């Protein structure tokens, strides 16, 4: 018999059941870790640290989860907050936003021999964090604009704009590989 997320949450709240919580972690660890890996531009070690903090916060604040949104959406919200706090702490590192000039430049790609080598992961890393978060949540994880707006704490219109801008930038960066993909 498999329990729903709501069943497991109820068990955690009523009995502090660590087994129920570990089942919740097992179910949701992959999308949360993948989201944070994208947000940290592929720093898997940091992403896992942030993911661990995310689940520890979820454990402590589970009683604030009202059930209005999906549990995964609620978790993404905590994860994004953890990312934002970490990026504030790490401002001195290479986490700064990529400026438009760098995004538009074709030279870095040429220096890597071929446009094809600039894969989607690299292209995503060149988006600013708002665009990257919106694209990853909606286009990769299948959240609706409304759900992504809850996670990122902004209006749905801003999510739509960031997705449009982000995808436009991805298309520009991936133009050659993208054409190959379409013709395949």
């Amino acid at each position, binding site marked *: 018999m498999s329990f729903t997320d709501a069943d497991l949450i109820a068990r955690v709240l009523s009995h502090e059941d*660590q087994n129920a919580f570990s089942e919740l972690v097992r179910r949701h*660890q*992959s999308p949360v870790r993948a989201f944070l890996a994208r947000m940290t531009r592929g720093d898997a070690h940091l992403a896992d640290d942030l993911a*661990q903090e995310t689940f520890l916060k979820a454990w*402590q604040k589970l009683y*604030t989860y009202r059930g209005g949104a999906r549990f*995964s959406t609620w978790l993404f919200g905590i994860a994004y907050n953890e990312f934002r706090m970490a990026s504030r702490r790490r401002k001195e590192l290479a986490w700064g936003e990529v400026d438009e000039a760098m995004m538009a430049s074709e030279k870095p790609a040429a220096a890597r021999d071929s446009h094809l080598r600039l894969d989607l*992961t690299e292209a995503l890393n060149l988006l600013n964090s708002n665009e990257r978060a919106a694209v990853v949540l909606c286009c*990769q994880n299948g*959240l609706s604009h409304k759900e992504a707006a809850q996670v990122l704490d902004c209006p749905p219109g801003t999510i739509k704009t960031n997705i449009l801008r982000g995808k436009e930038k991805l298309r520009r960066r991936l133009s050659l590989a993208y054409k190959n993909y379409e013709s395949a």
Partner: protein
Amino acid sequence: MNPPETNDPLDAWLREQDKYIEDNGFTARVVAALPRRRRAWLRPVLLLSAVAIGSVLAVLWLPWGNLPVPDSSALLSLDSQVLMPWVLVLSVMAALVWGTISALEWED
């Protein structure tokens, strides 16, 4: 999760990149690090208890019977003999109301 219905190849490409990440001990590490969960009700109950005790003390100790009647001339002259008892009473009442509201709206 339900991926949005779209014919955009870029969306398909993005979804293809979304690989499952194996647990590899992640869940065990999280569970090993779990602290005792704070009891959600404890802090608001403590705050409400403090408000209740504060209310009883306020009823017993504040100079309810000796409060001077604030007429306009006393207020305009800022007569401390008239104003200070009222400032004291109103401050205590405001603190009690604030404590009650904070306890009732407590989330974390």
